[in-house]
């Protein structure tokens, strides 16, 4: 099976590191023109340098934009008026007991984790429908589907996104456009790696031991018994964005390593 996105443009939010970066690299390798987004010029430039060294032939566009404001998505849209593949990836987390999380945290995470994807989909999806071709992907989290007393703002913002994604899919009825969600579990990223490195330094353990402890204590049910790699999420994004996935629409597809001990 071949994945070839030559002539297609993929916009990937929050792609200066982590899972988004892995997606940018995968789409570039699969032939797409790739739009890279991060909050700062420095982060976007650093990501572009790494990507260009891996894929010198690829046409990359960098857009520094904070997706936590209406201005951020507007900047992406101004730089890239149309796209074939939209990967709503950017998200932030906040670890705090839920009754201590202030309104501001709920608003901030709601805006970045949920509203940014709404704003971009509102713009790009109608254009995809006009062309009768396109893919919208949402990167969601298994955290949406479990109690999150210490990450409630994150949990509710991503839960809301599940509903928006499935509702947006209704607009594609009878077209060749699809809207799907990838359900992600514990995955290695810049954020988790930095956290684990700090925990390792503080405890005298290795990063590997810290990661193993995390799986053992926090996600013991994991079938893969390790953190997933960003590349493994990107693989699913590539499949779903391809023409091969034409009968998968309005769906939630797991790349969470089997951490959910339930049928549904």
């Amino acid at each position: 099976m071949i994945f070839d996105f030559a002539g297609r443009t993929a916009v990937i939010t929050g792609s200066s590191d982590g899972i988004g970066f892995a997606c940018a690299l995968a789409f570039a390798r699969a032939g797409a023109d790739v739009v890279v987004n991060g909050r700062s010029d420095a982060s976007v430039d650093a990501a572009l340098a790494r990507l260009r060294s891996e894929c010198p032939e690829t046409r990359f566009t960098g857009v520094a934009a904070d997706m936590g404001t209406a201005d951020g998505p507007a900047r992406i849209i101004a730089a890239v008026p149309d796209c074939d593949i939209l990967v709503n990836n950017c998200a932030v987390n906040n670890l705090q007991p839920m009754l201590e999380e202030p309104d501001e945290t709920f608003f901030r995470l709601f805006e970045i984790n949920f509203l940014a994807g709404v704003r971009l989909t509102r713009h790009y999806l109608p254009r995809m429908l006009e062309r009768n071709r396109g893919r919208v992907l949402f990167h969601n989290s298994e955290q949406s589907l479990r109690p999150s007393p210490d990450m409630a703002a994150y949990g509710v913002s991503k839960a809301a996104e599940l509903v928006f994604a499935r509702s947006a899919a209704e607009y594609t009825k009878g077209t060749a456009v699809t809207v799907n969600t990838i359900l992600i579990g514990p995955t290695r990223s810049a954020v988790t790696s930095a956290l684990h490195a700090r925990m390792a330094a503080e405890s005298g353990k290795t990063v590997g031991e810290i990661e193993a402890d995390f799986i053992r204590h926090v996600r013991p049910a994991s079938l893969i018994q390790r953190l997933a790699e960003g590349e493994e999420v990107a693989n699913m994004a590539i499949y779903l964005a391809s023409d091969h996935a034409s009968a998968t629409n309005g769906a939630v597809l797991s790349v969470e390593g089997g951490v959910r001990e339930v049928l549904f």
Partner: protein
Amino acid sequence: MMRIDLGGKLAVVTGSTKGIGFACARGLLEAGADVVVNGRTQASVDEAAARLRNAFPGREVTGVAADLGTAAGCALLVGRVPRCDILVCNVGVIALEDALEAPDETYLRLFELNCLSGLRLARAWLPGMLARNEGRVVFSGAQRPLMAYRGGTAYAATKFAQLSLARSMAELTRGTAVTVNTVMIGVTHSDSLDAVARDFAAAKGRTPEEDELDFVEMVSPGSLLQRLARAEEVASFVVYLASPLASATNGAMLSAEGGTRKAVY
């Protein structure tokens, strides 16, 4: 360009002489795997294997006629294929009786074929996959049992039972690189369904093409796809899950049903 390469892998696809199973066999061959095709009769197996060899000259295609609705049929298939890297449990039958009309025999027959056959084959091949720390089991699951209907209950119940079997089987892979997943399938083109569509259209004096939207609305109300899925569209997800690319997807149900499910999750 990215490519899925299953070169050197042996894939067994049950119920693969036509329809979705045949498309899976084709997709796996196209991705480089050697394939074992299976059907109930020698004639159907020979015909399918010949078509595949014709499409992929020089490639290894083995045909095994076996009724997987019996323990003996499963044993026969296992006896012919000592090692399996990719097991696609696709075989299944439908029965249309209402819940209370269906006799024990219908429930038992469908349970044995739609659910138990996967376990019987996994008993033989999954331990080897776990020992090699490499392998894939993919079930052809059905979207239908997620909805409530009065009819076709034995089918829905046994296919729902299969979802439970698959998720439990995935537990056996914990900490290994082996995965067990289910592709959720909706209303998809097949010889038998296409015949039904032709009959419905003919009764209204229309061609199946003219009647397609009405037919879809009847068998798959609200479908986002607004047409029947093609077998290849299901098979592509099976091939993806069978590949190394899908290494962090395990114990999951993956939809290739055209968005018929009016549920967020």
